[in-house]
């Protein structure tokens, strides 16, 4: 199959993301949008996601510290966060966002705070994994040349 050892490693890494539930099928949608005209599309979108969502995370953190607790505002932030996380296929992060929304709807402040801590952990873990993945991809070199049958 894949003779290049770096490429093989890359494939295994990618597979583990799906097997361990970090990414879902939407990530594949992004990969399918990547082509010669748009060779770094996936990395660009993911980078954009981390840049934009870190702002959101900060806003949510500040909102969680404010008194009185504004569940509506939190819900609105989380709606956007869920939307962009799901757009890149961030499965675990998306699941935590859904849970957070449930706590908001039921007015459960403790639940929101606990859930948010977990969400941040998942978010950071995924970021590290994806950064390592793209770095390896750059080392492995472009894929399009020999192996892809058309």
């Amino acid at each position: 199959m894949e003779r290049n050892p770096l490429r093989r490693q890359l494939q295994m890494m990618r597979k583990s993301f799906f097997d361990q539930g970090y990414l879902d099928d939407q990530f594949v949608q992004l990969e399918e949008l990547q082509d010669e005209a748009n060779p770094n599309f996936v990395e660009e979108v993911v980078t954009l996601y981390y840049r934009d969502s870190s702002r959101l995370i900060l806003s949510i953190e500040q909102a969680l510290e404010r008194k009185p607790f504004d569940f509506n505002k939190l819900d609105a932030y989380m709606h956007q966060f869920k939307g962009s996380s799901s757009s890149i296929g961030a499965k675990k992060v998306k699941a935590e966002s859904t849970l957070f929304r449930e706590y908001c709807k039921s007015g459960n402040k403790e639940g929101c705070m606990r859930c948010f801590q977990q969400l941040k952990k998942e978010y950071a873990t995924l970021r590290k994994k994806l950064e390592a993945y793209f770095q390896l991809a750059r080392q492995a070199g472009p894929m399009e040349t020999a192996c892809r049958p058309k």
Partner: protein
Amino acid sequence: MTMEEKMGVSSREDDGKDQFPNGMRVLAVDDDPICVEVLENLLRKCRYQVATTNQAITALKMLRENRNRYYLVITDVNMPDMDGFKLLELVGLELDLPVVLLSAHSDTELVMKGITHGACDYLLKPVSSEELKNTWQHVVRRKKPDSKDQIFAENRDKAQGGTGEVGQTLMSSSDKKFIKERKDQIEDEEDEGDDNEDENEDPSTQKKPRVV
């Protein structure tokens, strides 16, 4: 006239090169930059021509300035400057364009709200290219089933009528014209089609056998 010409591609300010639904002009609205980026690329993959904006107010401006330009609007429901439902109402009222709603939530109440406000579809984020591939159908479905002729008649009216009138729905002269044309067409078909069920004809004068 071919079907594609009837689709009104040539009556919109257009390149005329692409056959509908290829090249169909879509306006995508979402305040989230990641969603806009992904959506734009997915729509391009479907071979639509895409314009995007992250503000509902800008979207309205773009649509009002060029009434014949866009075939379809795809918009997020949750936006800071104006919510998607409001945008949907205004687009429907003033411009009568099909609107597809996008949301990260699929609560029944929200979907219901979308449909009752006139959305022709409500998609859950993240959308896939499969879902968007057939979204052109909403342009064809817009008024009634098998309304291909109507789209042509409307586009002809729009092209001739210029900017149209704000607030006036299309339940007006173009609809009446359509109804008349359709009626005439049906009557012509009935005159020609002798092998149809002639229920109103005098059965004793049936000379031709019924086609089953």
